[in-house]
């Protein structure tokens, strides 16, 4: 029984065989996997899913692979909880946090890469590649190593050392490209065209992108098999946002959740917000921009799925909002102080936008809201290092500490430290 029926063009609807291909030969539109939903609905059930291990392969029937031999490092089924403090602080009674920063390589990219490399192996590839500025590089390097693929990772030559280490430790071949953002992109597109490799975010993209659906599945399952009222999703290429919605739609279509009314809202950094700009301007065309923001993991100037992200936001009556770099840093600190989660700049963007949407009344206080945290803060420490608590340096003598403590008490810093109780931080 084959559950993948075909690849189908999202623009013209033309179908083609499910091979390694990402654009329609007829109209150059993007391709998407078509499943045999009749078969899936005859075999899938809540009980079956719930009985399986806690990783994303519990949704095997809805993922674009044919075999049971999957390449997994136990990604997915990440922590999900009702906010302990952030909801109270923002005035949201039913705020939930989905923490995808604790995947095997510390970002949601493990989901898409686990699916992409499993499918790549099924399609007969022994070389995998990607072009990345951080999170994807680490994930492809790790899964490539474990799956015994030859692995090529293309990065801009001036990428921060921390991110190079995060991929390099898994021993892939790393190619640093000297050039600006457009030149890096162009070269990678050419390499993907000429070398017959599994380029996860190019020719494997239709399969790769499907991995993000599992975030939608998990949130619905972890909420007790129901859809939230509103979700806030960081947007880079736009794929994650559209696939979270697709995941929830599939659950609804298969009767695994009773109804679907979720508003999907998009969060971008102001310095790279082509999707949010299009939403705000009610435009169908995504104007490419040159990224200029600290939120590098979501800084995609010409997003491949931008158009579909805009359509999803509009269709679900969500909104688009951006955050400045300062607001993003504040978002990172806020999530750390309220929920104990140290996220990277993409998560900071989500939290900053969540706050803005609440303040502007676009999210109501009693809505069930989910904030997606997609990457780990330890990867981008440089973005917050100048904005956080620094140690007070003293000699190893009790009276030095006593003096310090007294000065802190005097300047009220000890009480103010518990910022949730500090009136200055309360939202009016």
């Amino acid at each position, binding site marked *: 029984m084959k559950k993948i029926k075909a690849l189908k063009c999202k623009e013209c609807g033309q179908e083609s065989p499910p091979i390694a291909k990402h654009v329609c030969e007829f109209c150059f539109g993007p391709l998407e996997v078509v499943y045999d939903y009749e078969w899936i609905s005859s075999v899938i059930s809540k009980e079956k899913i719930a009985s399986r291990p806690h990783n994303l392969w519990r949704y095997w029937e809805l993922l674009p692979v044919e075999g049971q031999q999957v390449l997994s490092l136990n990604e997915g089924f990440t922590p999900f909880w009702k906010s302990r403090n952030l909801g109270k602080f923002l005035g949201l009674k039913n705020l939930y946090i989905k923490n995808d920063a604790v995947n095997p390589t510390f970002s949601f990219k493990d989901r898409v890469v686990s699916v992409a490399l499993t499918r790549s192996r099924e399609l007969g590839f022994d070389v995998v590649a990607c072009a990345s500025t951080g*999170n994807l590089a680490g994930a492809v390097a790790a899964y490539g190593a474990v799956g015994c693929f030859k692995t090529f990772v293309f990065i801009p030559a001036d990428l921060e050392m921390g991110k190079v280490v995060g991929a390099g430790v898994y021993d892939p071949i790393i190619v640093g490209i000297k050039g600006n953002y457009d030149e890096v992109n162009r070269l990678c597109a050419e390499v993907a065209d000429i070398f017959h490799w599994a380029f996860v975010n190019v020719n494997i993209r239709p399969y790769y992108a499907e991995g993000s659906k599992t975030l939608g599945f998990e949130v619905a399952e972890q909420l007790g098999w129901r859809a939230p009222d509103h979700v806030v999703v960081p947007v880079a290429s736009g794929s994650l946002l559209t696939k979270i919605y697709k995941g929830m739609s599939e659950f609804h279509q298969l009767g695994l959740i009773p109804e679907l009314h979720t508003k999907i809202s998009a969060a971008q950094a102001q310095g790279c917000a082509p999707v949010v700009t299009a939403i705000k301007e009610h435009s169908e*065309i995504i104007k490419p921009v040159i990224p200029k923001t600290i939120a590098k993991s979501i800084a995609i100037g010409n997003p491949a799925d931008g158009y579909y992200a805009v359509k999803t936001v509009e269709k679900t009556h969500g909104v688009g909002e951006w955050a400045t770099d300062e607001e993003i840093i504040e978002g990172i600190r806020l999530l750390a102080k309220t929920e104990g989660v140290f996220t990277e700049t993409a998560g900071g963007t989500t939290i900053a936008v969540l706050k803005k949407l609440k303040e502007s009344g676009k999210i109501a206080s009693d809505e069930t809201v989910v904030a997606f945290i997609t990457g780990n803060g330890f990867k981008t420490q440089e973005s917050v290092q100048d904005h956080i608590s620094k140690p007070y340096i003293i000699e190893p003598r009790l009276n030095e500490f006593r003096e310090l403590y007294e000065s802190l008490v005097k300047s009220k810093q000890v009480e103010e430290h518990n910022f949730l109780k500090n009136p200055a931080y309360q939202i009016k």
Partner: protein
Amino acid sequence: MKQAIDLIFPKNLIQDPIIYQMSKEVPVVFNIRRAKVTEKVGEIVLELEGSENELNAAKKWLENRGIKVEPITHDTLEG
């Protein structure tokens, strides 16, 4: 050889017959495969046919006129 490219027209060039002018100056065969144009921005997927040098010359000519020329995959780089 044949190659498809994505052209982004800024607002000030939308009303100019750019592709016609390009074909007058560079000997390539063109075929418009997809287009979306509003009053603010235009996007055209253009298929070009010619030798490698001719294709490069056509792309260069378009870029010099202020058109953004992109590979058809959009961004290949991800975070």
